[in-house]
């Protein structure tokens, strides 16, 4: 097993493509996406019955080597600052190596 940093990102579904682009620029190769989720944050309730895409969130999980984290955050932070959304970083072990 191998130590990695796990990132969990929750953003507007409509801005997910931009986030993926930023992550890939930061060197991310793998990720998992859960679409069409709801939530509440600083910008109020996001719950559009899903046909109002503007009120829908997506949840993205990805991992990176600890030393790559800073580079990724540099790419990611301006996006979240501009358009809202959250990101949690935590420690995990990656099973396969």
């Amino acid at each position, binding site marked *: 097993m191998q130590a990695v940093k796990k990132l969990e990102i929750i953003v*507007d579904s*409509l*801005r997910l493509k931009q986030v993926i682009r930023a992550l890939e620029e930061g060197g991310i190769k793998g990720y998992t996406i859960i679409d*069409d989720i709801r939530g509440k944050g600083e*910008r*109020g*309730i*996001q*719950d*559009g*019955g*899903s*046909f*109002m*895409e*503007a*009120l829908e969130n997506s949840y993205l999980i990805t991992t990176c080597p600890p030393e790559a984290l800073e580079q990724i955050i540099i790419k990611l932070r*301006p996006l979240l600052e*501009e*358009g*809202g959304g959250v990101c949690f970083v935590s420690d995990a072990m990656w099973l396969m190596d």
Partner: protein
Amino acid sequence: MPIDFLIENLSKTPAILFFILGFVASLLNSDLKIPPAFSKFLSIYLLLSIGFHGGVELSKNHFSFHILFTFLAAILLSVIITLYVFLIAKQKNKKEDAIAIAASYGSVSVVTFIATLSYLKSLGEDFHGYMIAVMAVIELPAILMGVLLARKINKDSKNQKNKMPWLEVFSNSSIILIIGSLLIGWITSSAGEEALKPFTQDIFKGMLCLFLLEMGILVAERLSALTKAGFSLYSLAFILPIINASIGIFLSKLLELNKGDALIFTVLAASASYVAVPAAMRIAVPRANIGLSVSLSLGITFPFNIIFGIPLYFYLINLFWK
């Protein structure tokens, strides 16, 4: 008197009663909810059906200058509404929020539009099929105005780090779907109409009931979210449809539309978008509070229009067209 129109409207159209059912269920704190994947499908279905229908109708009408003028008037109307609403809304809101609100009112609510068509049909009142095509293109000018306003604001605040993603703004799924279906209806014409009739027409009213059930739930949720907004915003959402309807009726008279087309034109003016425009603004003005504009257009203006507005506007049109 409008009150008769209203009761007629309610007791004959199951769709509106299902809207009320959803609304009441939500107030009763019920767990009733159309699954999201399905309400998204219903929305796709409605856009596809109405766009396709509009295209078929358009293919049956010969081109005329009267049609062209109606299109141009609708575009002009949309631009004017977006601009004046922006000027009003920016008084008490962030500029970004004002843009989102303005573009929403400059555009149209597809479901309000559909409710108008079935209202006219239930009264046996004539209207032209190309009015559906008018509705389908009317989403664009309001979004364009929104984007232009957003660029102006950014220039003013020298806050121009990201380029405007034009393509993404206009390739919004609702727009692609309604305009694409319009084209497909126009190309396949009566052959296509016959092939798709059982799907796009026969079960349409039933699908609409389900969608309005969900809308009722969402309106109730939006209303309770509104409680935190100020009084001036509430009243805006009541006043704007009335002002815009008046402009719509006036323009319809100028264009010499028949009564059915006039009601449709008026509803284009009076209704506000809560799907396509918010999605486009989410990308064009990311800092805007989109939830706010949706609360106004969906939470207040939408139920106002489908329950009171449509019969009221038609009552007025009947007065003036005598």
